[in-house]
């Protein structure tokens, strides 16, 4: 959130910061029902959201989530390729996701109402 203030007059910068913030919760949401290994998670996130132009930039975010304790990882052998690092949501992570979901719906609805205001 601290990033959002800095680029107040720059809408491209604002959108970038908004994406960066929201993307974390997209990852948490993708881990809600199943655990996934890093490569799969990164590819799926890039394809699902269309918000990621550089897959490599997702790794620093995953590292951040690990340190925040919203996700945890385990290593597991893979039939092909290197050992896989599996990501799963922690209790803290699912609580953060729930809070964000409620907040996001309220936020989205009120912004939508304001943006559509002139048309109706």
């Amino acid at each position, binding site marked *: 959130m601290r*990033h959002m203030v800095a680029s107040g007059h720059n809408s491209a910068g604002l959108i970038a910061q908004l994406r*960066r913030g929201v993307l974390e919760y997209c990852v948490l949401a993708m881990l809600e029902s199943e655990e996934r*290994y*890093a*490569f799969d998670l*990164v590819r799926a996130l*890039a394809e699902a959201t269309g918000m990621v*132009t*550089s*897959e*490599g*930039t997702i*790794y*620093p*975010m*995953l*590292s*951040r989530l690990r340190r925040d304790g919203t996700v945890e990882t385990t290593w597991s052998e*893979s039939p*092909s*390729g*290197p050992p*896989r*690092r599996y990501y799963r949501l922690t209790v803290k992570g699912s609580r953060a996701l729930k809070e964000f979901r409620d907040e996001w719906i309220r936020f989205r609805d009120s912004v939508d109402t304001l943006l559509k205001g002139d048309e109706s």
Partner: protein
Amino acid sequence: MTDKLIDRYLDDLREDVRDLPRRRQEELVAEIRDHIDSALAEMPTRDDAGVRNILERLGDPADIADEARERMGIPKPKAGFRETAAVILLLIGGILIPIIGWIIGLILLWSSPVWTSRDKWIGSLIIPGGLMLPFEFFFFASYTCSGSDPCGPSGLQQAAITLGFAIAVAAPIVTAIYLARRAAALSRD
């Protein structure tokens, strides 16, 4: 060839994250390497085009490094007093305090997070001592040739000495300008 492309990509990444804490550097590079290996394992054949595509999707290593800094709250290193002092001391430090002044410049150069290792090698090797050598030479030559006896070298020798002297003066100055411009460019957001 495919391995060379991957090695070059990972080397670029290592260079771009050089200012991050060591453990974070290693962790990030290992994750990106695993990503590449996983992507390769999914490819039926390992060819140049496929590898290029994987690296392209990963994106510019500099962008990954910027994102890592942003997520860790680490500001991008900016050129400041240390870099200014390094450039000045590498150039004329050896004149101010013989040899030691240049060595201090060298230490500042290598301890700076701003320059890449390539820049640092250029700064160290062109030319050790900076302007100290041509300065001492000029001083020494004018000293020995003062007096009434003609002691000058022949015309050809004179030309060679002049050329060598010109290079010894110009090279460290060009290097100093190069280092200053690189520091400014690398400090830009």
